[in-house]
């Protein structure tokens, strides 16, 4: 079953092409990593797929719904954990979770139960009644992902989820993401190549708004005749690199 299918998805800002005719298919349950240097078009792609930015040309179908004409339906199926931690600072951890459950349609009783379950599964019990602005970066990021999952999305966008975290906090988040594999479709953008290599089923490499290559980490290394994934990435992400 196809979760996401983009057809010539393009975004232009005046004369600059941020994303250029992206054609991509992602299956349900797949963990797909989108890699690229800064300005490659990863974040713009995520913003278009999550209905935050309208494409200039082309379209994308999310579980059969167009991001242009059925954006409200699309929004019911997806959730996003943005690049920067996106939490309500004066609300407690529990209130943040209940709030997100509520805006995705849960009544008060259901929102409370979902928050309770989420606190338990994400190990947030000790800080459940703390205001989220008082939490460390790692806990805030963990909460942010818990907030993205409380609506039980079919597709989850994780935009650089471990950016700025220490090694331990990053590994803890990796473990959370690994547990989600196969259950929901995850689109992950990251600058940490080992994160993409370790977690994802397939990897797409973008440069200058175009998708330069797509495949598993092993496939991409084989195609570029490299022994390390980092070398494969550099070969593919270089500006003007051939599409493979």
């Amino acid at each position: 079953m196809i979760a996401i299918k983009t057809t010539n998805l393009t975004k232009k800002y005046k004369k600059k092409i941020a994303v250029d005719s992206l054609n991509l298919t992602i299956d349900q349950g797949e963990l797909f990593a989108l890699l690229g240097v800064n300005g490659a078009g990863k974040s713009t792609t995520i913003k278009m797929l999550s209905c935050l930015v309208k494409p200039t040309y082309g379209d994308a179908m999310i579980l059969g719904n167009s991001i242009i004409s059925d954006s409200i339906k699309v929004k019911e199926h997806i959730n996003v954990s943005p690049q920067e931690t996106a939490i309500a600072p004066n609300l407690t951890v529990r209130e943040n979770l209940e709030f997100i459950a509520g805006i995705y349609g849960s009544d008060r009783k259901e929102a409370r139960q979902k928050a309770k379950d989420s606190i338990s599964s994400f190990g947030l019990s000790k800080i459940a009644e703390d205001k989220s602005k008082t939490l460390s970066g790692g806990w805030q990021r963990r909460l942010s992902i818990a907030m993205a999952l409380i609506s039980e999305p079919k597709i989850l966008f994780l935009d650089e989820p471990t950016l700025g975290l220490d090694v331990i906090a990053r590994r803890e988040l990796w473990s959370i993401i690994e547990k989600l594999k196969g259950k929901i479709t995850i689109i992950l953008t990251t600058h940490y190549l080992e994160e993409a290599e370790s977690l994802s089923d397939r990897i797409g490499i973008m440069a200058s708004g175009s998708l330069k290559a797509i495949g598993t980490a092993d496939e991409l290394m084989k195609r570029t005749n490299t022994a390390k994934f980092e070398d494969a990435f550099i070969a593919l992400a270089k500006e003007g690199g051939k599409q493979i």
Partner: protein
Amino acid sequence: MKTLTFASRNSKEILRDRLNLAFGIGFPVVLLLLLTAIQSNIPVKLFVIDQLAPGIAVFGLSFISLFSGMLISKDRTSSFMFRLFTSPLTSSNFIFGYTLPLLPMAILQIAVCFIVALFLGLTVSINILLSIIVLIPAAVLFIAIGLLCGSLFNDKQVSGICGALLTNVSAWLSGTWFDLDLVGGTFKSVAYALPFAHAVRSGRAAISGNYSSIFPDLWWVIGYASIIMIIAILVFTRKMNSDNA
């Protein structure tokens, strides 16, 4: 339900900020006490409590603009809005969610001014209730200004515009601090072309039982409140649907 959930979050964000409470409730009350003390030593007609209370109530509402503007601009300029804009919340959920919690806060703020005024000599009368009702359009006006500023500017700009400019403009041009007739000329014309002096005059007319004088001053306030609210909704909706929310 979604609107109420969003409104509840916004109430908590505003009310849990102690600085908001200090300025929103504390500052108008301190001014009321201070000006009443001045009045008791040097009698000034303008500072008699039934004249002063509606003026301070209107002045206090400028902080409501600051609260709403700051909340919206902070949301807009953070990733939190990214999360909200990718959720199934619609434009109307956002607009009502931001404005609904502010109305009871504004009414409570006006009521606190009058309750304090009662301790300072204001006569208990049904006209106090009428004056609170008459000031509700002014509350809507200040909420709309906050929504508009929050949709257009970042939090630093909002604190400058709503926190400094609006509080001063609404104070100087409201006729609360000095009689506008004493200045006269262009200053008076500008003051009466804006809604603040009309809001204060309608509140004073209500509290003094001079019911026939409530309108047309109140029409000015209702007109301004309606126009600014419509502009604010259009700007917010346009921003929400643009690439650079």
